[in-house]
C-alpha cells in the first residue's frame, strides 16, 4: 500500500470566501500577523502499488486529480507520496 | 474477565436494576448482556419514568390509524392516504457537538417516518438556545445547529417548512433541538415493525457499523456537566447522502412488496431496533454479529450490538426474497446482510457464527423493564412568583425612559419576536414543490398533489409560561398550535410532542412534568386532538440547574380546499382590521404580563401569573375562525401571542407590506398593557368592509367578543396615535436583526 496526499486549493485569482472568514476569525482572536489564509481540501489515498512503477502511479494520480478531485477551472492541486 | 458486579454502575444501571437482571437470568449477566440491559433500560429507550403518565393521553380519534407505540403515529386524511409524523429530541448530542448532533437528529426522525412506509414530505423543528446577543458560544450553537439541520434536510430533498426558535437564559447550558418529520403514504402500503414468522430473517441495510455513539442512549439519559465535553466520541456522524439512498431503497422494497416489516435503527442501534421488533411480535430472535458489516474490524460484539452508527435500517423478510433485495441494494451500492432469524422461543440470543455469546428473555428487556413512580412536590420557587407582577409605576418608568416608538422597536427587535428568516433561508423549504404557505406565518402548509387537500403544521411551546404554571403553560401550547392552524383554515386532527424537562428524580421537576402532562391531556380532550406520537427528554440540566419545563407541541391540521387557505398578511388597502376574542373586562384577575416577552425585554425576568385560558372558550373561538375562513369572509388571520397585540399587528403589516391605522380601546387605560400583554384566545383578522356585519353576526352567535380596531392603510403603522413608524423601517428591523446579531 502506498499513501498519497492530494491537496486541492482555489486558484490564486479566485475569491476564497472561506479563507477570508477564517482570516477574520484569526485576527479577532488577536493574531494580527496572519495575513493570508487559503482554504482547501486534503484527500488521502491508499493505493495498491503492486506491479506498478512509481511513474505509472503518478500518472494515475494526476489523471484522478485533474478529472475528479479538482476542477481545473477554479482549483489547483498538488500531491505527495508519503510512503508505504 | 470483567467483574460485572462493578461494571453495572458505569453502564448507568442502578443496584436494584442489577438485582432484577440477575433474577431474570437466574445467574450473573456477562458484559454483553449487561450492556444490552443497560441500553434497553435507559430512560431514553424504556421511558421508565414517564410511561405511567403518558398512558393517560388521549390517543384515539376520528382520524387516528396508529397512535403511540410504533416508529411514528399515523392519521387518515382520506382518499386512501395517510400522514405519518413524529417529533423527537436530540438535545444532549447537539449541546456537545451542535452540527452533527442536529444533523443526526434530523436523520433519525426521517428514518422513523420511512420505516412506516411513508415518503417524507416535510420537516419542522423547535429550537431553544441561550441568549445570542451576549454569548459567542450561544451564537456558535445556534449557527451550527441550523447548519446541521439544513445540510441534512437539504441533501435529502425534504423541505424544512417551519418551526420555532426561542432564546432564553434557561437554555444556556442545555440547548433544545426537537425535530419533527412528516410523511405521506398509501394506507395499504403502511409498514409495521413487528417481527413474526419463525424462520423469517432480519436484514440490515445501509451504512457499515462503526464505534459511533457507543452508549449514546445512556448519554441522553444523563445530565450535562464538564465531563460531557470529554465524551464527544459518543456523538454520531450523519451521512445524508447515504440516508437519501436508503430512503429510496426502502420505498422501492415496500412498493415491490419484498419486505414484511421495517424498523429504524436509532438509539442503542441493533439492540433496541431488533429487540423492539421481537417484543412487538412476541417472538424470539437469533442475531449473528459476524454478519454485521463493520467499518472498524476490531470491534467486539457488545460494541457491534449497541453502536449507534447512523443511516441503518432493519427489515423483516421471507428468506426467499433475500436475493432480490440484495440485488436492489447492490444497484444503489449499499450494504445488505441477513443478521437475524425469528425464532419461537421468546429468547434474544446473540451469536458470533455458531458461538452463543448471550441469551436474554425478550420481554425482560421491554415489558418487564423497570418502571418508576417518582415522587413529586410543588417546587419552592413557585411560592411567591405569581405575586411578582408589574405595578403602575413600573409601566410609568418605562414610558419615561423610552418613547412608544422606541418601546415598539425594541420589542420587534427581540430575537424571540423578529423574523427567523436567517434560519429558514438556510433550509430548503420549497423542494418537492408542495409548500403552499412559506415559513413565517402562523402555520406552514403543504398541499397534497392531485387533490384539493392540504396539511398545515404548527409548533409551539412556551417554557416561561410552563415555568410559572406547567399545567396552564402546556395547555396553552396545545391551544396555540391549534389556534395557529385555525388561522390558516385547518382543522386540527392530531399532534406529536417533545417533552423537555430536568431530572425526573427531583420531586419539583417531576411535579412540573406531571402537571404539564395533565395540561396536555386537558387541552386534547376539549379540543378533540389525539396525541399520536412523541418523545420525552429528561435530564435537561447543566450544573444541577434544570431548564424551564418545555413541552413542545406540534399539531397537524387538515385543509379540505387549498383555494381557501389564508395567511397572516394584510391584503388590501382599506380592509377592516378586527380583533376577535378579547375580553375587555377580565384583566383585573390576571394582567397577562406573566412570563411575557415585554417583561423579559424590559425587566429581564420571568415572573407573575401565566396567562389565563378558558379552553372551552378557546374552542369556540377556533371554530368561529374556521367558519369565517370557510365562508371566505376574511382575508387574513393572525393569532395574538408572544409580544402581544402590537407585535401581531406589526407582523400582519410587514408580511403584507402595508400600513395600518389602529385605534383600539385600552385595557385599564394602560397602553403598554393593552398592546404588549399576552392574553390567550385572540385572533386579529382583516376583511373587506362589506363583510364586517356578517362577521359580527357570526361572533355574536359564537358568543365571542368582536372589536373593529382599525383599517389597512398607507405605509405607516399607527397605533392609537402613540406609535407611528414606517413599514420599511420596521421591516428592516424585523427582517435583519438576527443576521445583524449573528454577524456581529
Amino acid at each position, binding site marked *: 500500500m502506498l499513501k498519497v496526499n492530494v491537496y486541492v486549493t482555489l486558484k490564486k485569482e479566485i475569491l476564497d470566501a472561506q479563507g477570508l472568514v477564517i482570516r477574520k476569525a484569526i485576527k479577532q482572536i488577536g493574531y494580527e500577523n496572519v495575513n493570508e489564509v487559503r482554504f482547501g481540501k486534503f484527500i488521502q489515498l491508499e493505493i495498491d502499488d503492486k506491479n506498478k512503477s512509481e511513474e505509472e502511479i503518478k500518472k494515475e494520480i494526476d489523471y484522478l486529480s485533474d478529472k475528479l478531485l479538482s476542477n481545473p477551472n477554479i482549483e489547483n492541486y498538488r500531491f505527495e507520496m508519503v510512503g508505504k | 474477565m470483567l467483574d460485572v458486579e462493578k461494571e453495572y454502575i458505569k453502564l448507568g444501571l442502578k443496584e436494584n436494576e442489577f438485582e432484577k437482571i440477575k433474577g431474570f437470568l437466574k445467574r450473573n449477566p456477562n458484559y454483553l448482556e449487561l450492556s444490552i440491559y443497560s441500553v434497553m433500560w435507559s430512560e431514553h429507550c424504556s421511558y421508565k419514568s414517564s410511561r405511567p403518565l403518558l398512558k393517560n393521553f388521549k390517543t384515539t380519534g376520528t382520524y387516528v390509524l396508529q397512535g403511540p407505540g410504533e416508529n411514528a403515529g399515523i392519521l387518515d386524511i382520506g382518499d386512501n392516504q395517510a400522514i405519518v409524523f413524529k417529533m423527537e429530541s436530540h438535545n444532549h448530542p447537539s449541546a456537545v457537538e451542535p452540527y452533527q448532533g442536529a444533523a443526526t437528529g434530523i436523520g433519525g426522525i426521517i428514518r422513523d417516518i420511512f420505516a412506516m412506509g411513508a415518503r417524507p414530505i416535510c420537516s419542522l423543528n423547535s429550537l431553544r438556545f441561550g441568549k445570542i446577543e451576549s454569548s459567542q458560544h450561544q451564537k456558535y450553537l445556534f449557527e451550527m445547529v441550523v447548519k446541521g439541520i439544513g445540510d441534512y434536510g437539504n441533501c435529502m430533498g425534504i423541505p424544512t417548512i417551519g418551526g420555532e426558535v426561542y432564546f432564553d437564559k434557561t437554555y444556556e447550558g442545555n440547548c433544545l433541538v426537537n425535530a419533527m418529520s412528516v410523511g405521506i403514504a398509501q394506507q395499504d402500503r403502511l409498514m409495521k415493525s413487528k417481527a413474526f414468522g419463525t424462520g423469517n430473517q432480519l436484514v440490515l441495510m445501509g451504512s457499515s457499523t462503526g464505534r459511533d455513539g457507543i452508549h449514546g442512549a445512556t448519554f441522553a439519559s444523563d445530565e450535562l456537566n464538564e465531563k460531557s465535553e470529554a465524551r464527544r466520541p459518543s456523538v454520531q456522524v450523519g451521512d445524508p447522502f447515504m440516508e437519501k439512498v436508503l430512503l429510496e431503497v426502502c420505498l422501492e422494497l415496500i412498493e415491490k412488496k419484498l419486505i414484511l416489516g421495517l424498523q429504524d435503527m436509532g438509539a442503542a442501534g441493533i439492540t433496541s431496533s431488533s429487540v423492539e421488533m421481537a417484543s412487538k411480535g412476541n417472538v424470539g430472535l437469533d442475531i449473528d454479529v459476524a454478519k454485521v458489516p463493520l467499518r472498524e474490524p476490531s470491534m467486539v460484539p457488545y460494541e457491534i450490538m449497541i453502536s449507534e452508527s447512523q443511516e441503518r435500517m432493519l427489515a423483516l423478510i421471507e428468506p426467499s426474497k433475500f436475493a432480490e433485495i440484495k440485488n436492489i441494494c447492490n444497484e444503489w451500492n449499499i450494504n445488505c446482510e441477513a443478521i437475524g432469524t425469528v425464532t419461537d422461543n421468546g429468547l434474544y440470543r446473540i451469536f458470533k457464527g455458531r458461538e452463543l455469546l448471550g441469551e436474554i428473555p425478550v420481554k425482560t428487556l421491554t415489558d418487564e423493564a423497570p418502571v418508576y413512580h417518582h415522587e413529586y412536590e410543588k417546587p419552592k420557587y413557585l411560592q411567591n412568583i405569581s405575586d411578582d407582577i408589574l405595578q403602575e409605576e413600573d409601566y410609568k418608568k418605562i414610558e419615561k425612559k423610552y418613547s412608544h416608538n422606541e418601546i415598539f422597536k425594541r420589542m420587534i427587535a427581540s430575537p424571540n419576536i423578529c423574523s427567523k428568516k436567517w434560519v429558514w433561508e438556510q433550509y430548503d423549504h420549497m423542494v418537492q414543490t408542495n409548500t403552499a404557505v412559506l415559513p413565517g406565518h402562523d402555520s406552514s402548509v403543504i398541499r397534497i398533489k392531485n387533490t384539493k387537500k392540504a396539511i398545515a403544521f404548527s409548533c409551539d411551546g412556551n417554557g416561561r409560561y410552563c415555568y410559572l404554571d406547567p399545567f396552564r403553560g402546556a395547555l396553552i401550547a396545545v391551544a396555540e398550535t391549534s389556534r395557529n392552524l385555525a388561522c390558516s383554515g385547518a382543522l386540527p386532527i392530531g399532534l406529536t410532542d417533545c417533552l423537555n424537562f430536568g431530572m425526573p428524580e427531583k420531586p419539583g421537576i417531576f411535579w412540573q412534568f406531571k402537571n404539564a402532562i395533565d395540561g396536555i391531556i386537558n387541552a386534547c380532550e376539549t379540543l378533540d386532538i389525539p396525541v399520536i406520537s412523541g418523545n420525552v427528554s429528561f435530564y435537561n440540566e447543566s450544573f444541577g440547574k434544570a431548564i424551564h419545563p418545555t413541552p413542545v407541541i406540534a399539531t397537524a391540521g387538515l385543509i379540505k380546499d*387549498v383555494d381557501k387557505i389564508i395567511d397572516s398578511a394584510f391584503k388590501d388597502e382599506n380592509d377592516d382590521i378586527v380583533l376577535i376574542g378579547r375580553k375587555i373586562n377580565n384583566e383585573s384577575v390576571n394582567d397577562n404580563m406573566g412570563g411575557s416577552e415585554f417583561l423579559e425585554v424590559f425587566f429581564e425576568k420571568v415572573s407573575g401569573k401565566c396567562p389565563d385560558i378558558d379552553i372551552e372558550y378557546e374552542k369556540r373561538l377556533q371554530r368561529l375562525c374556521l367558519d369565517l375562513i370557510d365562508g371566505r369572509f376574511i382575508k387574513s388571520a393572525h393569532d395574538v401571542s408572544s409580544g402581544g397585540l402590537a407585535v401581531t399587528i406589526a407582523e400582519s403589516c410587514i408580511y403584507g407590506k402595508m400600513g395600518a391605522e389602529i385605534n383600539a380601546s385600552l385595557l385599564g387605560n394602560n397602553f403598554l398593557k393593552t398592546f404588549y400583554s399576552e392574553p390567550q384566545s385572540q385572533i386579529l383578522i382583516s376583511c373587506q368592509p362589506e363583510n364586517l356585519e356578517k362577521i359580527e353576526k357570526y361572533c355574536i352567535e359564537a358568543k365571542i367578543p368582536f372589536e373593529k380596531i382599525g383599517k389597512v392603510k398607507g405605509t405607516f403603522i399607527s397605533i392609537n396615535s402613540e406609535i407611528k413608524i414606517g413599514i420599511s423601517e420596521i421591516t428592516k428591523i424585523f427582517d435583519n436583526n438576527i443576521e445583524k446579531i449573528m454577524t456581529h
Partner: protein
Amino acid sequence: MSFDKKPYFGILVFPGTNCETDCFHVLKNILGARCKYVWHKESQVEDINAIVIPGGFSYGDYLRSGAVAKFSPIMSFVRKFASKGGLVIGICNGFQILLEESLLPGAMLRNNTLKFICRYSHLKVTDTDNPFTSGYKSGEIIRMPIRHNEGNYYIDDNGLLEIKENNQVILKYCDSSGKEDASSNPNGSIENIAGICNKKRNIFGLMPHPEACCEKILGSDDGKTIFESMVNNII
C-alpha cells in the same frame, strides 16, 4: 400534433438527485408532456426529445457539486444527444453537472455568503433567442426560487467576454426593478449571472428552480414559460 407525438422528456436520476419528481410533475401534470426517468447507469435512451438534469445533491455533493455524476454512463449519452442538437436543460445541481462535464463554460464556487440560500429571487431574462426562454419578453423580470450552496458562478475574463459576445447569458439576478448590482446578487456570481447556454444554444444551465414555480399556489408560476418554450421549440 397527434396525441402520441407530444414531446417526450427524459429526466435523469443520479443517486442523490431530489428534484426529479418535481420536474416530472410539471412536465406531465401541468404541461401535459410525456416524460420518463432515466437512471444514471443507462447508456442509451430511445425516443426522447429533450433531457432534463434536475437538482439535488448527486452523490451527496461531498467532493464538489456535480463532480462525481459526470462519470456516470448516461453522461456520454447526454454528450452525444447534445452534439446532435438535442435540448438539454440542467437545473441547479444539473447546471453544476453540465459545468463539470464542460458542456457549459465556467465553474461554480461556494456562495460568497458561505450559507445555503433558499428564497425567491428576481431575475432578468437577458436573452430570448434560444429554445428555453423564447416565451418571455426580452428584459422581462421574473421571480423564481433559488436553493443552493454552490451557485457562485465563475468564469475567467476571456470566457466571460466570449459568452457575452455570443449572447450566452440568459438569466441574471436583479431586484424587482431590474437593477443588477451587489445587493441583488445573492451568491456572488460574476456579473449576476444566473443562467447560461452553450454556443449552439441547445444546452441551458440555470441555478434557479423553474420547476418550483409553475403554479400560483406555490407563490409564482413564472417558471412555466421555460418548459413551455422547450415544448414549443421541440415541435
